[in-house]
């Protein structure tokens, strides 16, 4: 296969996976939230259980007029959703679904993931600024402040994993976790990093990831009861759909990163390495589903914090903890 054909195939594959997963996540959120709230949720679209509701919503949004406020900075306003969705998309490039199922195995995978995932906040800031709406502006600035506050703990948490794994390539990080840890009765047992001392790191990563995804309890950039959806206020139609899809795609992507870094990625103790190219994607998706469920569960249980409380939490607690965690990771690397 030629280079371009392969590339095209990969792009299509990533797009399909991302959009598919985003739609499934949206459906899961609709259904789970409904049942947590003594509701049924979508029921009619698509016949059984309303499975086609996200599609129907998407189609409905596509028919809507794509409005641009008169005073908006039109170019930036139009560009912003693409930035968000590209950021969510680009993460998938380095996520390994199996030993050889990875689009590009970058040596600096962990670094790349962090860099790209924070790009979406740039899109949010663009949207907030360009909308020419005060609520949007406040929302965009909150998102930017949040990014600065949470990029550091995120980085520190990932750094600890990198220290412990001794590599920045995500494929190799998974491979390290799949290595036998100790042998019980002749059976080699492997363990993901969350077991091998990274529980603090995992917690920090998840908190920071939720903050970066601006989901409850850290959804201040959107905050519908304060800012009437913040940076999304002026968006409609297809551009709103892109934000919406991007949000859920980022959620899945972040979960995939967390699963790869802390939960052993596509590897599962007990699953033979030879079958991982087939079973691996499902193992990874299972772990992603778990994390996504956790995020949905948080969202429909907890209220929103305040921006300054979030900042205080990041700077006072998460960053010192993250630093401590790196030290611990060094110790674990020597001991374990």
């Amino acid at each position, binding site marked *: 296969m030629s280079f371009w054909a392969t590339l095209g195939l990969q792009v299509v594959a990533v797009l399909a996976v991302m959009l598919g997963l985003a739609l499934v996540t949206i459906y899961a959120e609709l259904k*789970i939230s*409904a*049942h*947590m*709230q*003594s*509701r*049924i949720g979508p*029921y009619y679209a698509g016949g059984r259980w309303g499975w086609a509701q996200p599609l129907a919503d998407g189609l409905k949004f596509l028919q809507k007029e794509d409005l641009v406020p008169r005073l908006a900075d039109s170019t930036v306003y139009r560009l912003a959703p693409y930035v968000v969705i590209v950021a969510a998309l680009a993460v998938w490039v380095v996520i390994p679904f199996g030993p050889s199922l990875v689009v590009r195995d970058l040596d600096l995978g962990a670094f790349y993931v962090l860099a790209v995932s924070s790009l979406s906040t740039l899109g949010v800031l663009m949207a907030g600024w360009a909308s020419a709406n005060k609520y949007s502006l406040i929302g965009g600035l909150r998102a930017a402040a949040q990014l600065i506050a949470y990029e550091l703990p995120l980085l520190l948490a990932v750094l600890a994993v990198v220290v412990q794994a001794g590599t920045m390539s995500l494929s190799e990080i998974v491979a390290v976790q799949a290595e036998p840890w100790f042998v019980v009765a002749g059976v080699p047992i492997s363990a993901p990093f969350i077991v091998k001392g990274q529980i603090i790191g995992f917690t920090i990563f998840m908190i920071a990831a939720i903050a970066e995804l601006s989901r409850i309890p850290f959804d201040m950039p959107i905050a519908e009861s304060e800012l009437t959806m913040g940076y999304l206020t002026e968006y409609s139609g297809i551009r709103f759909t892109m934000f919406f899809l991007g949000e859920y795609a980022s959620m899945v992507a972040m979960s995939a990163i967390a699963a790869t870094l802390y939960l052993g990625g596509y590897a599962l103790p007990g699953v033979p390495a030879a079958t991982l190219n087939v079973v691996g994607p499902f193992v990874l998706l299972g772990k992603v589903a778990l994390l996504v469920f956790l995020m949905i*569960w*948080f969202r*429909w*249980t*907890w209220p929103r914090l305040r921006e300054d409380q979030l900042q205080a939490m990041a700077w006072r607690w998460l960053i010192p903890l993250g630093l401590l965690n790196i030290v611990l990771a060094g110790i674990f690397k020597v001991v374990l």
Partner: protein
Amino acid sequence: MAYDKSIRPPFAGLWKGMWATLKALFRRPPTVFYPEEKEIPVPRARGVISLDTEACTVCMLCARECPDWCIYIEGHKEEVPPSKPGGRPRTRAKLDRFDIDFALCMYCGICVEVCPFDALFWSPEYEYSEYSIADLLHPVERLTEWLDTVPEPPALESS
């Protein structure tokens, strides 16, 4: 009081809430699937006003007592031939128009209450929405249709 603000284990409240929503996830929702199954309103429910034209004597009490003047009645007097030969011809009020503007109606029920001839009743029927506000002015034909849906009054709590 039950609400102390003392220090508890860290984030106990957060986990408690998570447990509560998790329990709710597996509970049966009380949803009624509206167009397919319908809730039966209580017999006293003030859904819509129905009219018994036979009983109405065009006395105008309801129209006058209505707080927002949403009942429009027109009528005329009619000579009724004597019931038996040689009797006196009687005059009777005949109803020409009885419209209720349900866009204005505030469902207070005063018209039903003041009607001295049992011509107005509450029906719990509620599915009479219209696309245009003007269509909510329901004429006498529609008001009489609802007469069949007037339920039996409920039994009373023995006191």
